[in-house]
């Protein structure tokens, strides 16, 4: 500690350093793909459990999507209104799904929907009240861990080009950019980046 300048930052305490080291060592590697069931404590101190989706989760899943505001939607999904949410879910739940629970409530959903070419499109949603707490990042990894055990091989998704933070989230778990479309207009309004990885 210096007496000469008040601007000198305080030295980190030994305990704090040990704590940070411990956190870094115990945190799963960003590309690790754990399989459900397992649980995390999120940034808000909530216990979040990850499970393979079952039909008994359906009503709570519908309720989660019903809680999305207009600003929470990307590329038109989830649809607006319970009826449309149900018919959308009926179409996309054929593939593999993993859900995140807080207590009995579904607060996150990652799904793998087969396309016509034998690959799967990934989509992931986190309840608006549970975002920015690390739930989605763990859900993404858990979903990929689960999908890899169920014969899902190549996974792809599209993200709007201006959503750089979201794109980075996918890159962190091993997705890479496919076929950058053009160069001049790469980030034109409305353009999307397709990312994929082989599990």
């Amino acid at each position: 500690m210096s007496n000469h300048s008040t601007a000198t930052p305080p030295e980190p305490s030994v305990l704090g350093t040990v704590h940070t080291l411990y956190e870094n060592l115990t945190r799963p590697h960003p590309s690790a793909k754990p399989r459900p069931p397992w649980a995390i404590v999120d940034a808000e101190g909530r216990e979040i459990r990850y499970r393979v989706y079952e039909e008994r989760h359906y009503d709570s899943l519908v309720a989660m999507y019903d809680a999305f505001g207009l600003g929470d939607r990307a590329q038109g999904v989830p649809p607006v209104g319970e009826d449309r949410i149900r018919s959308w879910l009926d179409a996309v739940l054929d593939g593999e799904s993993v859900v995140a629970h807080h207590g009995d409530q579904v607060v996150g959903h990652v799904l793998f929907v087969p396309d016509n070419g034998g690959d799967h499109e990934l989509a992931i949603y986190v309840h608006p009240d549970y975002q920015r707490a690390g739930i989605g990042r763990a859900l993404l990894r858990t979903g990929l861990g689960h999908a890899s055990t169920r014969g899902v091989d190549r996974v792809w998704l599209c993200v709007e080009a201006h959503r750089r933070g979201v794109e980075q989230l996918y890159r962190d778990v091993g997705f890479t950019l496919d076929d950058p479309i053009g160069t001049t207009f790469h980030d034109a309004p409305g353009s999307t980046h397709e990312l994929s990885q082989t599990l």
Partner: protein
Amino acid sequence: MTTHESTISTTPHTPREQSYSKPGHTDSDTDPSIVLAVGETTDSRRAALVDAAIGAAGLRYATIHVVHAFTPSSFDATLDRLNFDTESPPPADEVARRCADVRDVIGRLREADLPYDARIELHGCIDTAAGPALVGLATDVDADCVIVGGRARSPTGKALFGSTAQHVLLNADCPVTFVKDE
């Protein structure tokens, strides 16, 4: 990519429309040129594609370039399906002419009330990606408009243009009309 070889002339429909034509008119750089992309992804929306093409054709001397973009594998599959000799395949334009989706579009255009002297040209392209093939053709024919269809929804239900349509929308030098699949 191959350039066009086949031309189907439409018959004049009514004498009234004939009166709009300039006597002795020859092909001119200013005549409207429309590229109409017909692909396997667009079969549910052919009528809408044709309507868009007719709307864009306007009144005088338009040429509608009907394009079927094959990938090398879809070209081979089409040859096989149509009982062509895969060892010495005919030109892509000829294969395109035989495709059901192209025949359907040509039929619809012929039935439509096209302006007098509107022309239809057929093109078959073989390229690993349809988007660049369509943009290349649009450049070659100096297109005034490209009409392209595509899936509007991904498997998870996201609203998307589809990679072909997106490529054309972002890279063509002319206006592009997107006709979405249902």
